[in-house]
C-alpha cells in the first residue's frame, strides 16, 4: 500500500521545465528520502503534493485517492525556508496555524499543552516569536507541523539550524511518528542522515527522476567488488600472490592485524576465491562487501546525468 503516488507529473514554468514525467511511490509507513541537487525540482514536487501548485500533466494520489482539498488536513509540511509571524505570540500563532489546518480550538489547546510540556517550553507561550532564537523558532514550527496528526509528513531539511542534541531529539520524534503509522517524506542534502533514517529514496536531477527504491537495494546495486577485510596472518606473502586481478585500495597494519580494502577487478573472480587465497596465509577476522555511501551514489549519479545532458 502506498501512502503517496505521483504519476507522470510534469510542471512547466514559462521556458523552464521544472518536473519532467516524475513518478514516485511512497510506501505507507516508510521514511522516504527525496534527494537531489539544488534546483532539481524537489520543492516544486513538494508544492504539488501540498496542492500549492497544480501539475500541468500527471496525477497525484494519496492513499489511492486523487488529491483534493480534503487531503490538506492529512498533510503536515515543514518547508525548508521556515518562518512564523515575528510579532505574534507563540501560543496564538500555534493556535491560528492549527485551526487553519482544520483542528478545533479545544483540541489544539490540548495537544499544544502536551507537546509544550514534552519539549519543556511552556514558558514560551506568551513570548513573541522574534524573542526566540532560531533553533527555538524551529522547534515551535516542528510542533505546529505535526500537531494535527497528519498521515503524511513532509520535512524539507528539518535539521538545519539545530544543535546535535536537538537534532537527536527531532530524529527520535520523527521515527516515533513513523512507528505510530505516519508516512514521512524527507528532503535533505545531508546524506549521512539519509542513511540513518530513510528506508526508501528517490533521486531527482534536472527535473527527472533518476532512481527510486529501498535504500539497501540501491546501495547493493551500486556496490562495486570491493571488500573490507580484517586479516590476521602473513600479509607480505599474501600481497605477493595477488595478481593484477586485484587492487589493494587501503591498508592499515597494526601489531598483528591488518585492515584492508581490496577491489576485485576481474568479474570472474568470486569472493570465495579471494577467501581461499587468504586462508593459506592466516585467519580472516571479518570479511564484508563494501557498500557505497549515499554520498558516493549521489555524486556518481548526478555527475553521470549531468555529463549526458551536456
Amino acid at each position, binding site marked *: 500500500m502506498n501512502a503517496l503516488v505521483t504519476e507522470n507529473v510534469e510542471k512547466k514554468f514559462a521556458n523552464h521545465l521544472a518536473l519532467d514525467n516524475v513518478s514516485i511511490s511512497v510506501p505507507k509507513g516508510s521514511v522516504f528520502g527525496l534527494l537531489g541537487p539544488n534546483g532539481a525540482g524537489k520543492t516544486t514536487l513538494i508544492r504539488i503534493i501540498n496542492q500549492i501548485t497544480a501539475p500541468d500533466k500527471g496525477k497525484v494520489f494519496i492513499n489511492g485517492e486523487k488529491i483534493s482539498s480534503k487531503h490538506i488536513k492529512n498533510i503536515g*509540511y515543514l518547508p525548508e525556508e*521556515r*518562518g*512564523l*509571524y*515575528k510579532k505574534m505570540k507563540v501560543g496564538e500563532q500555534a493556535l*491560528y496555524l492549527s485551526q*487553519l489546518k482544520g483542528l478545533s480550538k479545544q483540541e489544539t489547546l490540548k495537544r499544544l499543552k502536551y507537546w509544550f510540556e514534552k519539549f519543556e517550553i511552556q514558558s514560551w507561550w506568551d513570548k513573541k516569536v522574534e524573542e526566540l532564537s532560531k533553533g527555538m523558532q524551529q522547534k515551535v514550527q516542528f510542533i505546529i507541523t505535526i500537531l494535527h496528526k497528519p498521515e503524511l509528513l513532509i520535512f524539507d531539511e528539518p535539521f538545519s539550524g539545530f544543535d546535535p542534541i536537538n537534532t537527536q531529539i527531532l530524529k527520535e520524534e520523527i521515527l516515533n511518528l513513523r512507528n505510530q503509522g505516519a508516512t514521512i517524506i524527507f528532503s535533505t542534502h545531508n546524506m549521512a542522515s539519509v542513511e540513518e533514517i530513510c528506508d526508501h529514496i528517490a533521486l531527482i536531477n534536472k527535473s527527472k527522476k533518476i532512481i527510486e527504491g529501498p535504500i539497501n537495494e540501491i546501495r547493493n546495486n551500486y556496490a562495486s567488488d570491493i571488500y573490507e577485510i580484517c586479516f590476521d596472518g602473513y600479509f607480505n606473502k599474501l600481497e605477493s600472490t595477488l595478481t593484477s586481478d586485484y587492487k589493494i585500495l587501503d591498508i592499515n597494519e597494526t601489531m598483528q592485524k591488518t585492515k584492508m580494502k581490496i577491489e576485485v577487478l576481474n568479474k570472474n573472480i568470486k569472493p570465495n576465491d579471494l577467501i581461499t587465497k587468504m586462508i593459506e596465509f592466516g585467519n580472516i577476522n571479518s570479511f564484508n562487501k563494501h557498500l557505497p555511501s549515499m554520498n558516493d551514489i549521489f555524486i556518481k549519479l548526478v555527475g553521470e546525468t549531468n555529463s549526458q545532458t551536456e
Partner: protein
Amino acid sequence: MSKIGLIIKREYSTRVKKKTFIIMTILGPILFAALMIAPALLMQLEDDEFKKIAVIDETGVFSESLISTKHIEFYDFSAKYLNQETFEYDLTKATDDLKDSDYYALLYIPSNAVFNAKGSVILYSYKQPNIGIKMHIAHGLEKKVKDIKFQVTADDLDINQEQISEILRVANSEIQVVTNIIDDKGEIKESHSEVAMIVGYISGFLIYMFVFMYGSQVMRGVIEEKTSRIVEVIVSSVKPFQLMMGKIIGVALVGITQFALWVVLTIGLVSIGQAIILKDFDPAKLNPNTTEIGSELSPNSLIPDEKAIEFEKIFQAVYSINYFVIIASFLFYFIGGYLLYGALFAMIGSAVDNEADTQQFMLPITLPMVLGLFVMLTAMQNPNGSLAYWFSIIPFTSPIVMMSRIPYGVPYIDLFISMALLVATFIFTTWFAGKVYRVGILMYGKKVNYKELWKWFRYKN
C-alpha cells in the same frame, strides 16, 4: 469558523491591538478637534492682554479717531518727538524709547496718510502685533479718511454729507445668487453650492486617504508574510486567494473601525471642547466685521440679527443636503475604491522581496489616484462638465470624483453606471491580482518587471 474567517479575524485583531493603531485612533480626533476649535480659541485669547500704544501723528487729525477700548489704549506722543527747530519728527528716538517702555507698539502716521494712505502708516513693535490690533487701527483711520474725503468731495460737488451717505447706501447693493435645482419630477429645491463643495471635497479626500493608508497596509502585510516565509506554510492549508482576500477584508474592517472611532471621538471632543472652552462662543465673532473692536467703529457692517439669519441659512443648507444618498454612496465608494486598489496593493506586495522594491510598481496606482484628486478640484467648480462626468464614471477615479459631484445632485443613471462599473472592475482587479499573487508569494530573489507579472498572470494554477 471558516478558514477565511480565521484569516480575517487574525488580520483584524493583530492590527487593532497594535500600539500605532491605538495612538492614531486617539490622536486623529484630537488633531481634527484642534483644527476646528483652535481658530476660535485663538481669537478669544488675543483679546485678553491690555496694550498701550504710542502714537506719532504728523497730520494731527487722527487723535480722536483712534478710540481706546478695554484692551487697547492710545497715547499721543506727537509733541514729545517734534524737533522744534527742524519741525521734523524724530522717529529713531521714538523707536529707541519704545524698547524699554511698557508700550506695546508705536504707531506712526505720516503727513501724507490722508491722501496717499496705502502702506504709509507704520506700526512699530518688538513683538508680532496681532491681527485684531491692526484691524482696529485700520478701521479707525479708514473712517476718518473717509470722513475727510467725503467732506472734500461734498465741498467740490456742492452737496452735503447726508446726500453722499444716501448715494453710498444706494450704491452698496450686495447681491446673493440663490441656486435652485429642478429635479426630474419638476420639483424645485434650493441648493447650496458652498456647502455641497465642502462636503464633496472632504468625502473625496477621505477616500483618497483611506485607499492609500490601508492599501499600503495590505501591501506591507503581504511583504511581511513573504519575507518571513510563513506564506508557504499558510498556503499549504488555504488557497492563496483566500489568504489575499482575508487580508484585504480584515484590513478594510480595521479601516472602517478606525474611521467610525474617529467620527465618534471627533464629534465628542468638539462638543466637549465647545462646552468647556467656548462657553460664550458665538460663531458671528469669527467674522472680523463684527468683532468686539470692529463693531464700535464700523456702523456700516451688518447688524447682528442679519448675521444670525445668514448662519441660520447655512445650517439649513447643511441639513438640506440629501444625507442618505451622500452617506450611502460615501460608504459604497469608500469600500469599492479600497477593494479595487487593495487587490492591486496585495499584488505588488507579492511581487517584491522588500518594501524598497515597490516603488517601480506604485505608479499605476498613484497616477489615477492623484489624477482623481485633481479632477475632483475641477469638478467642484463644474460638477456636470464632461471632465467631471467621465472621471466619475471611470472606475479608477470614480470613487474620488463622484463623491465631489454627489452633493450637487447626480442623476441616478450616472450613479448606477459608475457603481456598476466599479463593482465589475474590482472583481476584475481582484481576479487579476489573485492570479499574480499566487505565483508571486512563492518567488524569491527575482528582479521583477511588468513582463514578468504578465507571465505569472498567465501561469496555469
